[in-house]
């Protein structure tokens, strides 16, 4: 990657951001960014939870949703008929949204 001619060229400048920020460290966790999940989440083959519009509404309103699937606790990809709005956090059979509140509004759904 570092050998890529594009990276070599870019490294000649004083750069304050490269590409798309993909992860963020939160304490001892590494959290994928919403934008990275929106761009690449469709390539994932596990930890995907299918939701409908009403579910997304509830999540954005701050509610927790029960999840019947057998999944480990942790970040999951929310998928609304194949469209990926962002991440959820699954803890003991319920999921809450990790989508930044200031960016998504109830009126959007």
């Amino acid at each position, binding site marked *: 990657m570092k050998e890529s001619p594009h990276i070599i060229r870019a490294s000649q400048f*004083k750069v304050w951001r490269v590409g798309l920020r993909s992860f963020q460290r939160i304490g001892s966790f590494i959290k994928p960014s919403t*934008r990275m999940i929106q761009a690449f989440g469709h390539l994932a083959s596990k930890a995907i939870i299918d939701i409908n519009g009403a579910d997304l509404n509830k999540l954005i309103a701050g509610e927790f949703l029960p999840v019947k699937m057998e999944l480990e606790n942790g970040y999951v990809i929310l998928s609304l008929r194949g469209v990926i709005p962002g991440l959820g956090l699954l803890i003991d059979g319920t999921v809450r949204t990790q989508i930044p509140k200031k960016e998504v509004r109830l009126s959007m759904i």
Partner: protein
Amino acid sequence: MIDSTFDCYSEIIPAFSRFQESLLRPMPVRLRVNGLKIEPELLVQMLKEKGIHLKRVTDRRDEIFFEAPDLRSPGNLLEYFIGYIHPQALTSCLASIALSPKPGSHVLDMCASPGGKTSHMAQLMNNSGLIVANELYPNRHIPLENTLSRLGVLNSVLTSYQAQEFPLKQRFDYILADVPCSGEGRVRKTRESPEHNRGHIRQKLLDLQKKIIIRGYDLLDDHGKMVYATCTYNPDENESVVHFLLGNRNAELLPINLGFHYEPGLTKWRGMTYDKQLKKAARFYPHQIDSVGFFMARIGRRR
């Protein structure tokens, strides 16, 4: 009420009364579909299911650009948040198309924020190659970063140089100089007046535009292409700046073929005579294209 703000251009803008009338109409809502994330037909279908009908802007250059007559605030759609759409003026879209950077190429966007054209170029390049998106002001970095990340742009690095002093370390295949300007082309009478009053454009701004075009040219590869663009009608910020480049560098103007109506650049204005090549530049007027008034010139190195 039609006011006299632009009367000084009555001799250069064709069908001037129609131009004046067009300023009384609100700007139509237009959307670019972000092909980096979704196929246009799919998006059209998704919005149709929500009762939002998209209309192609023309039959010619239409694969990504739509009008949304029954949509007031595209920023309130989930499809916006997910980065499937970007509200953008048609003329602003045409600037990236006039440049048409090829996939894999090296591009410099000298004045990039809020990133409408940067993200469109990334789309034209299919997220390959490299775009150096430069924006001087830190308070403009946030909107730039938000646009690029929302639209899933991966091939960019962001810098913060004064465009007119962008380091001469390497040359680029494509350069966009979408310079700060008086913004006259954005004015519809439903909106506030442009920042600067006509005739009182600050000399500093005109000098800056000249410095940026010269630096852009000096950063251009031998076979490179540059687009100089503004959203103003003022010849002092348009033809005059390009004329300055032609007088100081071995540059040539290249034809612009977009399939949309535009008027040729001026070769005369208020006692000034400009290089004849300026006829190859493009002036877009709201009564002809129902969008933001715009100027662009496509520039190459003379060989």
